[in-house]
């Protein structure tokens, strides 16, 4: 990746907005395109750091093998599960219809 400031196009930003499930007005789209371009340009300075001999560090800890036993613990009551649901029918959460599709491709 070159360290020249990459710029995001409006189309890029619209695509990211959909991927993030965020509705944007035209004005917000313009504004965000500018802001994100600037921020991405800023963080792109990392391209200049030589990391050819360096592995990524995802966890600050060095721990491993943390498990729990296969023992049942109390679940929430259905009442408290649904209590904060924007819409429910007493048994299930209700969301706008998911028609003819499965989740992940």
């Amino acid at each position: 990746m070159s360290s020249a400031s990459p710029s995001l196009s409006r189309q890029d930003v619209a695509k990211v907005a959909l991927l993030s499930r965020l509705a944007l007005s035209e004005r917000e789209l313009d504004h965000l395109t500018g802001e994100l371009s600037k921020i991405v340009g800023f963080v792109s300075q990392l391209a200049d750091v030589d990391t050819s001999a360096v592995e990524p560090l995802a966890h600050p800890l060095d721990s491993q093998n943390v498990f729990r036993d296969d023992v049942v613990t109390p679940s929430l009551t259905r009442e408290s599960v649904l209590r904060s649901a924007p819409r429910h029918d007493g048994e299930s959460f209700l969301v706008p219809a998911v028609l003819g599709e499965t989740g992940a491709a």
Partner: protein
Amino acid sequence: MAAAPSPADVASPGSFTTIIGLEVHVQLQTATKLFCGCPTTFGAPPNTQVCPTCLGLPGSLPVMNRHAFDLAVRAALALECTIAPFTKWDRKNYFYPDLPKGYQISQFDLPFSSDGFLEVVDPKGAFSRRVGIIRVHLEEDAGKSMHDEAAGTADSRIDLNRAGTPLCEIVTQPDLRSPQEARAWLNELKLLLVYLGVSDCNMQEGSLRVDANVNLHIPRPDGSVAKTPIVEIKNMNSFRSVERALAYEAARQWEEWQATGRELGSAPKQTRGWDDPAGVTRGQRHKEESSDYRYFPEPDLVPVRVSADDLARARAAMGVPPAGLRHMLAERWSISAYDADVLVNQGRDLVAYFEELAGLVGEGKVASNWMQQDVLRTLNERGGTIDAFPVRPPALADIIGRIAAGDFDTSRGREIFAEVLASGRTVADVVSSLGIAAVDDDALDVLCRELVAANPKIVADVQGGKEQAAAGLIGQAKKKNPNVNPGKVRAKCLEIIRGL
């Protein structure tokens, strides 16, 4: 061990080879979910097996179920996979109402196992196929989304009981060559996983789900091979559906290729849903951005290191898998591959029963016949498990032994078996109460002379060279004395007739 080439391997011009790969999701048989202590029992009322973690509430955190990991390793070992010494967890990010966190914790670039295989051999010898396994990884299941089209509402109902259930995802190489093979392979996989105690593989309850990838290789006259675009088939609810769907889809692709000539790479991979009542696959709407899952390492979980000791312990806990058991039974007890297959298909407990029986009887074939014709039949009629079956191997061996000794014939033996089963009494008790006693030689002689005297026609037939006519005397003998041994009656009658 190389599989013998099946007829489906090589297509001649004017036909095609069907290339099939499977992606199987198996729910692990743990008491609790993968990352929390909610129970995994099937059929509970909606949203009653949910906690902050599997509901994805703000602030909730996952903790890995050790038993789930152990079962997954067990499955991978049995599938001859290499277990990675270091494995990690990743987030697969997408939005869907049955995925409350907005991501699924799964494994992306460092699955815990890879590069295995599972062979399926048709017991009647019609085919054998070694199917490579690309990877087996561990991930959490999503909840259930229900849409009642008939009700006409604009809403879907979401039940999160299933969210967080541990799943093993098994991805095969595209090594299968026919719908029949695919179905047989799935049965073999199911048998293996049930034997291991990894899963109950019940498609009706959703503990095993299958997606299939299929395309055709079509030889051209010039020797090159045309390949149709790969289609992913979803929504198959039984192994039979898998077979039917693959057969339908192969035929459909053949028609389409002949009509359009469209080849692999000319269009993105298509997904089609199987409509079982209609018996067809239907194209599903293509989603553009659905493939960008933005995988990254799960920061809430630490990696897992698997040591050589861990693997040794896992192997020790595995037991002999079905394929191995079939071989062992056939060799040890000199029974046919077919017979071994029937026994092994019934599970470890029945195999143990058989082995105990065969050991007492001292011979495999007879024991195997009794297992298949009598034990299995009555077991299926009565229901219940072999462990609860009232006739235990020593009792059955006793009956078989007495038959061999000539105390009575096989059909009499069956009556005794039925009576022991029904009454719970001992074999000796039943034998004596039925008045079964060995018929002594003198009584047999008297009886046979009576029969010979009473059946001049049969005597004439035998003397004329038709020895099998003597069989007609056996039924009459049994009527007079049920305790007679048919073989002895026949021999004695023939002897008497010859002496006439």
